[in-house]
Every structure is written in structure tokens, then in C-alpha cells.
């Protein structure tokens, strides 16, 4: 309601005028209504993350999931800068300085793009480390249990199979060379120049494949041997020992050992000392098994594999033990364990994904506004776009600490 003094003061009373609206433009009102629903939407998401995170028995640290705090802080700074630039664009538009308004709008657009670029880089890093929001791409397991051991075994067998395929290329390409040579001879006899050219091309291709296969054959044999050794000496040995152990804590420790050897570095000497002690025990056991009247060839083979694995893990100053199989070899990606890692990945990708979608929508709005003359007539539009953008910044203000620093 507003008060207006009557044009005729002799009447001596106040005339009231009814206003059927809030004292703001309709567009701005609608945007605020939309933002109030957005507040509830993101509160639900962030609240769900916090409740899940603090209700979980364990949660990965940023280091575990390859999150970089400085990158997160940089992205926060980028969004703060963009919030400033959009408000400066609004002030310039209000002063009818269209050129300056457009400049600040363009700066906002570029900063938004930079934010999304950094976010894209972060996503790429997660994917490169086998962290996805869900299977089938994800290599992430929550717990080193029999399901994990089984998936590691399958991955090792697949890697060994791939090595076998590469080794077989030597023979396959050799037979293709022989075939191509025979075709060349036939074509020469038949004086068929076209067939001869085709056969020569085939020969050249087969020779190239053969050269590469021969050069890599020893490497693939060595890799296959390592994969089979890890399968038999680590996964199968530990799984069998864990299932036979009546003490669940000891059993779990054996399963944990698989996960640690695959992914986590042993930064102390304890595991090395333990393996050296185990080697001594097993050597004695092997001697006993070989001297027994009724020999158990399967058990002997298992113990021999385990001994070989210990030698392999403790070789070169225990390099594999110190860095983990996945970190030592870039040619293999084995499933790994991050306790509560899948829950982390789901919440991280959901929160940052929805936020990134909002950033993208903001960028589309700015892209639409940029070609237009951003004078005083467009001030209300810029204010509405700015309000939305500030809200996006607000959400990130809360996402940064809870995702990167908690």
C-alpha cells in the first residue's frame, strides 16, 4: 500500500491506493520464487551428503580419491570473481554504460567456462584412476571381501589372456607372412599384377605386425607370468587362508593384504618383515611336504607359488610392496579398495554434476545476453541472471569445504 496526499487538500483526508503486487518486477519475483525452490533442492542434496557422510563408519580422505584441495580453492576463487564481475555488469547497465556492462558480462562468461574446464579436468582425473559414479566402468570396491578378491582374480586372468593373445600374434603373423608369400608366387605364375599387388600389401602388413609382436613377445610373457603369479600366490592363497581361518579378524587381515598389495603403498617395513618371516616358515613347510611319504602335488605347487610371489614382492628393495601393483605398472588396472569409496563417488558426482549443470545453464543465459546492447533497459534482465549466478556461487561456497576439506 502507498499513501498519496490528495490533490485537493480542502477535502482534508488521505487517499489510499491499492497495489496488487510486490514492489519488484514480475521477472525478478519469479526468479526469486525459482531460487527458493532451488534452495530446497540443494539443501536436500547437501543435507543428504552430510547425513550419509557422518553416518558412514568410514569415509575416504581427499587424498584417497585423488581430490586436489588447491584446485578446489582455485575454482572457488574463480566463482567469487565471476560473482563480482556480474554485479559490476549490472551496475554498468544501470548507469547505461552498455560497453562496460558487456565487458563484465564477457568476463563472467569466461570465468564460468574456466570453472567448468577445471571441473572437467577433475572428472578426467577421477576416471583415469578408475573412479566412476557406478559400475561397469568403476574399478572401485568398498571392502576387501570375497567379491573383491574374485574381481581381482578375473581382472588378472583377463590381463593374462590379453598377454597370451599378443604372444600368439607372433605365430599368427608368421603364418600370414607365409600365406602372403604363397599368394605372391601364385600371382606371378598367373601373371596377375593386381593380385600380386594385393598380396604384397598383405605381406607388408603381416611383416609389420610380426616385427612388433616379436619385439614385444618377451615383455608379454613376463607380464603374463606376473599376472598368474599374483593370481595364484596372492589372491588365491590369501582367499583360501582367509576362508580357512576361524578368527574373522585374522581372515579380514588376509583379505586386506590383497587390497594393500594391489593399490596402497606400504610405507613402513612391517609388511616386508612379515613376508620375510613367512618365507622362512614356508621354506620349512615345503621341505616337509617334499619329504613326506604321500606327497600332495597341489599343496606343493601352491606353496611354491607363494614363495615365488614373496620373492617377487620383495625384489628391487620391495618396490611393488612400497608402491602397490597399480602404481608400479601402468599397463594394468586392477580393481582396488577405498572403504566407502562408492558412496563417496556417487555423492561427489551427483553434487558437483548438478552444480555444473547449473553453471552451464548460467553460461547459456550469458551467451544469449552477450550479443544484445546491455543498456539500462536490460538492467532487470541482468539482475535476474546475476541473482541466479550468485546462487550458483552460494552453492559452491558450501560444496567446497564439505567435499574438499571435511
Amino acid at each position, binding site marked *: 500500500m502507498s499513501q498519496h496526499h490528495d490533490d485537493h487538500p480542502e477535502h482534508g483526508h488521505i487517499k489510499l491506493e491499492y497495489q496488487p*503486487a*510486490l*514492489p*519488484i*518486477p*514480475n521477472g*525478478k519475483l519469479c526468479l*526469486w*520464487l525459482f531460487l*527458493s*525452490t532451488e*534452495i*530446497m533442492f540443494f*539443501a*536436500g542434496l547437501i*543435507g*543428504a551428503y552430510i*547425513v*550419509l557422510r557422518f553416518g558412514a*563408519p568410514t569415509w575416504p580422505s581427499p587424498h584417497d580419491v585423488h581430490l586436489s*584441495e*588447491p584446485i578446489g*580453492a582455485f575454482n572457488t*576463487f574463480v566463482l*567469487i570473481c565471476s*560473482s*563480482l564481475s556480474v*554485479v*559490476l555488469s549490472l*551496475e554498468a547497465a*544501470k548507469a547505461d554504460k552498455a560497453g562496460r556492462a558487456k565487458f563484465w558480462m564477457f568476463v563472467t562468461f569466461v570465468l564460468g567456462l574456466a570453472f567448468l574446464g577445471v571441473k572437467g579436468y577433475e572428472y578426467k582425473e577421477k576416471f583415469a584412476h578408475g573412479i566412476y559414479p557406478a559400475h561397469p566402468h568403476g574399478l572401485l570396491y568398498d*571392502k576387501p571381501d570375497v567379491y573383491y578378491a574374485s574381481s581381482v582374480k578375473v581382472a588378472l586372468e583377463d590381463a593374462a589372456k590379453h598377454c597370451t593373445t599378443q604372444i600368439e600374434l607372433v605365430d599368427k603373423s608368421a603364418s600370414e607372412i607365409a600365406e602372403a608369400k604363397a599368394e605372391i608366387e601364385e600371382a606371378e605364375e598367373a601373371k596377375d599384377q593386381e593380385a600380386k599387388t594385393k598380396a604384397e600389401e598383405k605381406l607388408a602388413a603381416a611383416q609389420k605386425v610380426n616385427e612388433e609382436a616379436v619385439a614385444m613377445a618377451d615383455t608379454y610373457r613376463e607380464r603374463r607370468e606376473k599376472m598368474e603369479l599374483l593370481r595364484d600366490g596372492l589372491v588365491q592363497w590369501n582367499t583360501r587362508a582367509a576362508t580357512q581361518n576361524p*578368527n574373522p*579378524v585374522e581372515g*579380514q*587381515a*588376509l583379505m*586386506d*593384504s590383497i*587390497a594393500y598389495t594391489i593399490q596402497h603403498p606400504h610405507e*613402513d617395513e*612391517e*609388511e616386508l618383515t612379515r613376508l620375510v618371516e613367512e618365507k622362512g616358515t614356508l621354506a620349512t613347510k615345503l621341505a616337509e611336504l617334499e619329504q613326506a611319504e604321500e606327497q600332495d602335488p597341489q599343496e606343493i605347487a601352491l606353496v611354491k607359488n607363494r614363495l615365488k610371489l614373496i620373492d617377487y614382492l620383495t625384489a628391487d628393495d620391495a618396490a611393488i610392496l612400497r608402491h602397490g601393483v597399480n602404481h608400479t605398472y601402468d599397463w594394468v588396472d586392477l580393481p582396488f*579398495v577405498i*572403504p*566407502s*569409496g562408492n558412496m563417496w563417488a556417487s555423492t561427489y558426482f551427483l553434487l558437483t554434476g548438478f552444480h555444473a549443470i547449473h553453471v552451464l545453464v548460467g553460461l547459456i543465459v550469458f551467451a544469449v545476453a552477450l550479443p544484445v546492447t546491455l543498456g539500462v533497459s536490460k538492467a*532487470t534482465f541482468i539482475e535476474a541472471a*546475476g*541473482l541466479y549466478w*550468485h*546462487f550458483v*556461487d*552460494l552453492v559452491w*561456497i*558450501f560444496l*567446497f*569445504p564439505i567435499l574438499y*576439506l*571435511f
Partner: protein
Amino acid sequence: MSSTGHADEHHEAAHDHGHGGTGKYWLVFLALCLLTLCSFLTYFEMWHNAIPVNVSRAFMMAVSVSKALLVMCFFMHLIWEANWKWVLTVPAAMMAVFLVCMLIPDIGYRTDYYSSHRWNHTPQPIEPNLHPSGDARPAAQPGH
């Protein structure tokens, strides 16, 4: 005059009073940068060693709320808006808090009701130096 025309007039009038110039926006920007730096301090080892984790988290949340208030009050101009702002923001904020609170009993306290069988499938921290030994005992867990 139409209602929208009135609204525009009132709106322009409100915006012409009380917040001219861009100096305050630069000051707010500077404050936001400093506050971001404050929350980033918690990343460093020195901070971890000196400050308990719960205090650190409370500090981060206080910093975030301060930053949010600065953005809302100055960049979103709420400090200069009329009383309609409460009509839109307060119910939404209350509902947001309510949404979070509703998740706590079933989701936040979910492990309080886990059976021992469920605990077998629950992620636990990996103990790098927990090796089979004669005196190892199963850890007592809720739900047992």
C-alpha cells in the same frame, strides 16, 4: 498505472537509494577472498596438527555461512530489498533445514540398527598393519 509499472518504479527508487557506486562490491570481493583463504588454511599440515578436527569443521562452516551472507546481502542486494525478501527466503530456509533433519533418523543413524550380518558387508577402514596373530580378536561392533 499498472501494477508492474508501479513495481518497476518502486524497484528503481529503492535501488537508486542507499547503494550507489561499486566500491562496496570490491570490498565484499576482498572479504570473500580472505574468507576463502581462511577455509583453505585448514588444508595445511600445520593446521591439522594444532586444531581438533571438529573445531576445524565448525570453523569452516562459520566461514562458509559468513561468505554466503556476504553474497546474499550485497551481491544479491537483499540488504536493500523491502520486507518481501523474508516472505520468500524464510519459508524456503525452514523447509531446507526440515529436509535435512528428516534424513537424520533413518540415514544418519542407520548403523545403529545394523545386524551383525549387515556389518559383515559394511566398509571398514583398512588396517595396513593388522596381521594374523595369536591374540587377534574380532572387534566388537554395534549390532552384535
